């Protein structure tokens, strides 16, 4: 595991070298530019659907603002549970080698919530509610740790595709581009760490799991990809943008072929990695 240790050292060094102050890194305008796109239109959840085609340009731009609030909100909720999970694993017996990097991971995730929350509170006056519920259950050896880091990896892989695209989109306000850029810079390290750790945990534990446990892990992760995407189609954002019957609109968008193809494109990198690591079987 010399390679793993070397990568951890490099990631820790990079986190120290690029240590950011989230309170100083972002210049917050008093108000966002009226009628500007806040979210890359091609990434908006309803883009290309029948509802989208019927919207005026002003309605689309209004939806783009609430999609930004939703994107930042779902990041906050993901980071809250991530911070909880990381805090439980720092200095965990048997995980001493990853603990130094977990300190950076924790620190950086807390900072992300500062700027995501700063945007939502300043410009929308709220963070969208989280509706995820976790149920306690029994786990096979290593299964809980593996699923925790695999969920984090999938979540961050999807977010990162959006971050990279929006950081460069000059149609968006500077503050939105900057938040996406800062997030991508640190997430690229988290992703490098996650890819190594998920494979290491899978290789260590999958061999001792029963076939039922392994099948359950694979089913769960495939379903987790779908559940993660559903948060991008938030009826609360549609309602705030003045869209009629938001729950039906969500369902139609989830079933829309163009939206499905978009999700497949964005998720392709994460699924390719999980297949190559043998976490998921071919064809998933």
């Amino acid at each position, binding site marked *: 595991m010399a390679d793993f240790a070397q990568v951890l050292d490099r990631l820790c060094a990079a986190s120290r070298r690029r240590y950011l102050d989230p309170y100083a890194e972002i210049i917050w305008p008093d108000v966002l530019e009226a009628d500007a796109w806040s979210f890359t239109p091609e990434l908006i959840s309803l883009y290309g659907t029948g509802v989208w085609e019927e919207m005026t340009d002003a309605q689309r731009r209004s939806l783009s603002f609430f999609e930004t609030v939703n994107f930042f909100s779902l990041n906050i909720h993901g980071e809250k549970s991530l911070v909880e999970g990381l805090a439980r694993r720092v200095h965990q017996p048997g995980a001493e080698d990853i603990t130094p990097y977990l300190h950076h991971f924790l620190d950086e995730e807390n900072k992300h919530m500062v700027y995501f929350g700063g945007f939502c509170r300043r410009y929308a006056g709220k963070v969208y509610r989280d509706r995820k*519920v976790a149920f306690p259950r029994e786990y096979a050896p290593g299964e809980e740790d593996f699923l925790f880091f695999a969920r984090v990896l999938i979540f961050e892989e999807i977010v990162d595709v959006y971050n990279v695209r929006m950081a460069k989109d000059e149609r968006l306000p500077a503050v939105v581009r900057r938040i996406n850029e800062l997030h991508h810079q640190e997430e690229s390290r988290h992703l490098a760490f996650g890819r190594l750790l998920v494979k290491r945990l899978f290789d260590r534990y999958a061999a001792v799991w029963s076939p039922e446990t392994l099948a359950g892990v694979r089913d769960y992760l495939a379903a987790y990809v779908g*559940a993660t995407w559903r948060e991008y189609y938030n009826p609360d954002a549609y309602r705030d943008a003045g869209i009629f019957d938001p729950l039906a609109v969500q369902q139609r968008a989830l079933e829309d072929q163009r939206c499905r193809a978009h999700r497949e494109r964005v998720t392709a990198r994460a699924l390719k990695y999980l297949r190559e690591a043998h976490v998921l079987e071919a064809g998933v």
Partner: protein
Amino acid sequence: MNTEGSFKKELRDWIVVRNQKIAPEDFDDDTPLIQERIITSLQVLDLVLFLEELTGSAVDVEQLKPGAFRSVNVICASFGPGGQRGG
């Protein structure tokens, strides 16, 4: 809006549509939904949205008690007509 009977029917219909591997006669109103994997933890997000739509009231998942989604009867008692909103 709903009577208890219509609430349960809408809920049962939703479960059958979401699960796709289960028929209405395969579970009753006391069947443990999560334990029997008729609903997965990952589907609860959609269930909460559905309950909010059905009842017209927001569900605060932070306030949910353990077992709030145990069965159709428990969900109805928690979120249905005259329910306790949170299990």
